């Protein structure tokens, strides 16, 4: 009996007829357009290469945007922090600007994959992959981040809330458009955040659950001015627990308010039963634990801890 080497999916290697390296954004968009959707943007490639290898995706050309000018910066202007479309997880995890403005994002970026993955994988790629448990998508969603997208029609902005359409699908067309920036308002006085992650190991593993939480408070009156709770993987897309958030808006900062929101967030979650990531029932219970911890942590950071 002969042994079929080709049975291993990794014996199929990636196929792309051309590897293009545009020097400018305009050139990159033209290149994409010339393939009519059959080319694909590549930045780090840590998501794209495995999906090409497993034939989840077939392309005629790869357009490498990682060396386009202005893609790798992290800057803060007033309240707004902007990350270029080529910023890697390692950059975000170690950036003092990100650590100060959004510790939850630094924590999420530091949880992605392994050091080797973080050195090349990008935050923009994590968003575009549209996976429900993405370690940087969830904190960005909780931060009410928005992204800039370059397309043949020009530049536009999209809020992340509403950006995710379904598993692996977003409002960005990865065969025609390029994410050039990610922006969010810095946390600070009266606004705190937290990143809570449940996983079986400390590295090289997708999370069983992530709760990324931002709480806004009026410390004088001890009321919530707003809250954002992003959860995954509890639905086909990264989820904002909108009903739980609505319960908190204007509510007093108290154990009762938090308990009500925690119950609601658990009701809004519908994780799948998974032999790797735990049963639906278990993870719904864990949503309560992690949202409670996340809110407590975010409140403490906002200068208005729960008593």
């Amino acid at each position, binding site marked *: 009996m002969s042994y079929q080497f080709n049975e291993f999916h*990794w014996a199929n290697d990636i196929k*792309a007829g051309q590897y293009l390296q545009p020097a400018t954004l305009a050139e990159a968009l033209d290149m994409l357009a010339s393939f009519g959707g059959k080319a694909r943007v590549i930045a780090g490639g840590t998501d794209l290469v495995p999906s090409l290898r497993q034939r989840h995706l077939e392309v005629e050309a790869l357009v490498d945007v990682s060396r386009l000018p202005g893609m790798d910066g992290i800057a803060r202007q007033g309240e707004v922090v902007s990350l270029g479309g080529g910023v890697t997880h390692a950059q975000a995890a170690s950036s003092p600007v990100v650590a100060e403005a959004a510790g939850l994002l630094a924590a999420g970026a530091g949880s992605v994959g392994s*050091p*080797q993955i973080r050195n*090349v994988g990008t935050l923009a790629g994590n968003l575009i992959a549209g996976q429900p448990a993405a370690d940087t998508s969830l904190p960005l969603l909780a931060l009410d981040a928005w992204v800039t997208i370059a397309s043949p029609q020009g530049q536009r902005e999209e809020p992340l809330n509403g950006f995710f359409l379904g598993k692996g699908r977003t409002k960005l067309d990865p065969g025609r458009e390029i994410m050039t920036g990610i922006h969010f308002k810095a946390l600070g006085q009266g606004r705190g955040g937290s990143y809570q992650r449940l996983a079986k190991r400390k590295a090289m593993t997708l999370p069983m659950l992530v709760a990324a939480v931002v709480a806004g408070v009026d410390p004088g009156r001890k009321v919530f001015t707003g809250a954002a709770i992003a959860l995954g993987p509890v639905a086909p897309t990264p989820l904002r627990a909108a009903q739980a958030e609505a319960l908190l808006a204007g509510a007093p900062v108290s154990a009762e308010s938090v308990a009500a929101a925690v119950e609601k967030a658990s009701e809004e979650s519908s994780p799948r039963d998974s032999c790797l990531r735990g049963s639906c029932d278990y993870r719904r219970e864990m949503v309560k634990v992690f949202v409670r911890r996340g809110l407590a942590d975010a409140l403490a950071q906002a200068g208005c801890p729960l008593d």
Partner: protein
Amino acid sequence: MSNLEITFVLNGERVKVVTAPDALLVDLLRDTLGLTGTKVGCREGECGACTVLLDGKPVNSCLLPAVKAAGRSVTTIEGLAAADGTLHPLQEAFTEEGAAQCGFCTPGMILNAKALLDANPHPQEGEIRQALSGVLCRCTGYGKIVAAVKTASQSRK
């Protein structure tokens, strides 16, 4: 297929090679350039056996299109020993501590450890474990590998 000619610095020497547009760096290194010290365990970014240093930072060469090496510097395990064969302190320490069994993970372990020690010459144990967290070893149980990295960090004063 439109092949591309790329130039990069490989283990300190400039190389010019022609690569397929969709070749991965690991295959260019192993098959075209004959440097088989870089291993392939999974081809999925999970095991870290294929780790090389790109501009000094560890990356999985099984996920990296070869074209991305253009204009940059790549270090593989073959680039660690001196020209006269003197081993790198990490290689010495791995030998001394018996930190390799089958040896398949060793190039990845040593390259990740090198990137760590280059940036942080005297790391804590937690930092060592963190730096090695992207490489799987199916033989040793990791204890001796961590000990070897510690030994190497102490041998550099």
